[in-house]
């Protein structure tokens, strides 16, 4: 069964460094999302991406965040200059079309900023 795949599973980075979290959505899916979950808190929406552009973003998704789909396969989340408070589990999700109600999630990348 096709799955959303995220790499790496765990990333440790120093404060101020740039990180790129990678996701491979299910191949025929058109809508892509990033969510994050700070330890002990709820899963929060960051950004949605459709037709090679951001379709919606939350207030969390400020200028230090960016997303792209460089090669039609990978879907990446870049954090330009990490802060301690960026430490969280980051989840990628995809769904096939606008009418589909089920989002398929990756297993997550745990980002630890030290």
């Amino acid at each position, binding site marked *: 069964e096709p799955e959303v795949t995220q790499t790496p599973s765990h990333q440790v980075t120093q404060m101020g460094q740039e990180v790129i979290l990678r996701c491979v959505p299910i191949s025929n899916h058109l809508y892509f999302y990033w969510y994050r979950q700070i330890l002990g808190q709820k899963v929060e929406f960051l950004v949605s991406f459709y037709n090679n552009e951001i379709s919606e973003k939350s207030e969390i998704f400020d200028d230090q965040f960016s997303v792209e789909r460089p090669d039609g396969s990978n879907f990446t989340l870049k954090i330009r200059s990490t802060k301690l408070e960026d430490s969280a589990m980051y989840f990628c999700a995809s769904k096939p079309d606008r009418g589909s109600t089920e*989002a398929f999630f990756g297993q997550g990348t745990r980002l630890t900023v030290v």
Partner: protein
Amino acid sequence: AQRVTQPEKLLSVFKGAPVELKCNYSYSGSPELFWYVQYSRQRLQLLLRHISRESIKGFTADLNKGETSFHLKKPFAQEEDSAMYYCALMGGGYNKLIFGAGTRLAVHP
């Protein structure tokens, strides 16, 4: 404002006991509501969606618009039901999910 509230962080029951995980929502339009489950060391996966009115693994959830609730129920809990359960609302033009804080269900033998 769009919001999902799960008032219980932890629900601890014995095997065979009934389970009800509470979820209340706030949404200005017609909501689409879901329950997602995350078993230990596994990814978030869809358990139920209200439009399907289905029963999955013995779980059911009924949307009550008057009480703005979507509680998840199972008459007889099993140990393998132990997991994190997240209630979620689908909103916005691009169908983002708005999650509740989650309830950890622990089913003891």
